[in-house]
């Protein structure tokens, strides 16, 4: 049950407050971190998209971004490291009426959880994946992630990262996602709009959010504080809706292409299952409303 709180004093209440577990605030994120901004956008997207909040479930993995589920006043689950998507898959299949959102970080979703992500996209499972990409493992102290751009300094790459990084949008696109977008934490309005869109979109949806980690990534790479990073995002970002996802690679200080790159309609996993099985089994195929025992 999400059960929105009664707003006792509407004049002084922040509009997103009813969506947060206020008893858990202040949150754990560092000054200048972008994760809180995305949570703000997400709560606004919940308002804008007018989805039934009792039908929204949030699933997180481990890491700084993994803490998001704990602050949202919705049905939420904090899984083990990398396994938010398998959990979300089970959740969606058991109760397809739920709007399942996976909210986690780049290390969680693309290193330890990378296999799960591409398979969920391949199935076009109807879940929404919001990936905060801060280009680093932050919670464990700033090690190289599969997203760390070349030459960036981390605790495990003191001479600069030499491994090629994943292009997350290209990966999600090529694995079959129905919706792929990228924004930075500077683009709060556009991000909110994308989030609002995916809440109403069927199929595997993926939003990448480039987000600062002033404590570990920006500081080590001499890129300033949270505010400097906002300025950097503003200067370096280029909106290119529909850009081929193969052209979206992130470099250490180059251009960041943002926008909505993929928005297509493919039958999702449940539709595929339904059509194949009813075609083969005819009347013998009976579908239950959901698998949750009452």
């Amino acid at each position, binding site marked *: 049950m999400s059960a929105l709180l009664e707003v006792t004093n509407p004049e002084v209440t922040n509009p997103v407050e009813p969506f947060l577990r206020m008893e858990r605030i*202040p949150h*754990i*994120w*560092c*000054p200048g971190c972008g994760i809180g901004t995305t949570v703000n956008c997400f709560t606004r997207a919940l308002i804008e998209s007018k989805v039934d909040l009792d039908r929204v479930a949030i699933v997180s993995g*481990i890491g*700084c971004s993994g803490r998001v589920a704990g602050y949202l006043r919705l049905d939420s689950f*904090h899984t*083990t*490291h*990398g396994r938010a998507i398998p959990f979300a898959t089970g959740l969606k299949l058991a109760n397809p009426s739920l709007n399942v959102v996976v909210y986690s970080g780049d290390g969680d979703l693309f*290193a*330890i959880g*990378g296999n799960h992500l591409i398979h969920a996209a391949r199935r076009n499972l109807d879940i929404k994946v919001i990936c905060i990409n801060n280009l680093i*493992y*932050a*919670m*464990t*102290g700033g*090690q*190289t992630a*599969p997203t760390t751009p070349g030459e960036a300094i981390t*605790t*495990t790459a003191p001479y600069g990262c030499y491994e090629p990084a994943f292009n997350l949008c290209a990966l999600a696109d090529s694995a079959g996602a129905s919706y792929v977008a990228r924004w930075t934490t500077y683009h709060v309005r556009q991000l909110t709009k994308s989030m609002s869109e995916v809440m109403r979109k069927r199929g595997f949806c993926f939003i990448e959010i480039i987000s600062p980690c002033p*404590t*570990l990534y920006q500081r080590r790479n001499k890129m300033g504080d949270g505010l400097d990073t906002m300025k950097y995002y503003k200067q370096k970002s280029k909106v290119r809706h529909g850009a081929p996802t193969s052209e979206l690679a992130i470099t250490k200080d180059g251009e960041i292409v943002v926008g909505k790159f993929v928005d297509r309609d493919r039958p999702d996993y449940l539709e595929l299952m339904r059509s194949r099985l009813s075609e083969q089994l005819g009347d013998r195929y009976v579908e239950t409303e959901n698998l949750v025992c009452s």
Partner: protein
Amino acid sequence: MSTIEVSAASSQPTRTDSHVTNDFSIQVATVNGSGSQTANTVLMRALFQMGIPVSGKNLFPSNIAGLPTWFTIRASKHGYIGRKKEIDFLVAMNPETAQEDVRKLEPGAAVVYDEPLKLNTVRSDLHFYPVPFDRLVGPVCPEARLRKLVRNMIYDGVVAQLLGIDMEEMRTALYKQFGPRKAKAAELNWNAVKAGYDFAAANLVKTDRYRVERMNATAGKIIIEGNAAIALGCVFAGVTVVSWYPITPSSSVIEALTTYLRRFRIDKETGKATFAVIQAEDELASIGMVIGASWAGARAMTATSGPGISLMAEFTGLGYYAEVPAVIVNVQRVGPSTGLPTRTMQGDILSTAVLSHGDTKHPILFPSSPVECFTMMISAFDLAEYFQTPVFVFSDLDLGMNNWMSDPFPYPTEPINRGKVLTAEDLDRLGGFARYKDVDGDGVGYRTLPGTRHPKAAYFTRGSGHNENAGYSEREDDYMNNMDRLAHKFEAMRSRVPAPYVDIDQRAHVGIICAGTSRYAVEESRDQLRDEYGLQTSYLRLKAYPFTPQLSEFIRRHERVYVVDQNRDGQLLQLMRLELDPDEIAKLRSVRYYGGLPLDARTVTAEIAAQEGF
């Protein structure tokens, strides 16, 4: 600067003449990421330089910046370096926790606090020292941006003055901490320490009992974290391939190891690295890479913590059954699942001893100190290669991430043992080999390394059923013979793993058994039991699983034996139950602590005293 009224209320404890010298704990309550670690390390190091035995324990939250953190320094003239349960001297810098921190103190404790917190109104049975930190930091640190960090150095000066810590030692400790390259930062911080000292000297009247005096109990000792000691042990063991995935509290093992390898393992002639460190995409991959590298003949290792161990279960079974060496360091944290990532526990013993499906058993080493972290890494590699099997080294967060006063590490006296590996010349002489045949009677077969230039060298390694010649087999006798040989190999380890430390008191009817970091609480508790209850105890500290014959001998000599565990289910005791005779098991009693903090002597003493009926 005006003189500050120290007495808060009329019931304030009066000045006492009974000094407590070199026997107290200082707790500093701050906020994560505020630079307090430097201040605390300087304080600890200055005490150490004065010859006083010290220990430092950092209690930190699972986040990067902004949540409450407590650092506890214990000074003990008796040399006790386990956690002391009571806090004698509090430095309250964090408004969020200050009130509760003060409420928890025993009467008579001293409190240095940030003046605006008005902590002197909370209680009247403590010694309060208000310090206007914000007012003091301005003149020493004109740059507002740095004040948050420099502010913490001021309490160092205040504490030094109140306890009588030699300022020259403070200065040495501080400049050592910053190093020669950060001389300017060191000067800025030193001025803050002095400002704190001068303020205290001019404005505070000492009323508490605690003070320090120079001793000579730390000569020749070093201060080091267990994780760094493990890294050094790996270097001396000749590690060449390291694969890992970040996880608290083990990440600093590999970070330290990478630094040491860069320094000590670059070939002087070619300038090339003689090692590879790779950060994998997850723990499944990291143990996989270790087993691959070990099969190729490298000394390979990984370091992880509980959740990583769970993920390594499948590959560990392959290492056991296909008989490939691997060294896995587990810096234990609190489970189950994600648990408490920044708290300490010894809760992975049972699951690791038989990690993976089917009949498996794995050796585990239990280092208790930085010295043993160092020496046992060398033992672990030798055991892994000799017995051709995964070997686990079980540290914990307390040992791994805290600063320990330690003896210098002994230089290895024995050459490393690479085990039974056949070369092309050996094969010429022998005419061939059966990979899984027990030639020597210890259950360990001979192996070749891939790439050996000999027509008889290659063999097919598999995790599926196989016979002596490494051929695929589903035969009943092949399977059972192989499993029996593996069990025999495990028995053979008993004479080669590190033997326990045993201290027999001839008068004692009671014995105490523990492993790893529990030793500090247990060793102090033995003194408490003797001094306060007249209870003499014998003591055995396990260093390895499989257990050695000394364990049964020890239990048989005593009427009751307490097994001290840092987990809920008494896992060390449960593991013993699987191996011991019923009459030995009947003597075992369980002492368990599982709150996530380093075990303290009072907890052990109270539990044993209660079970002894005192």
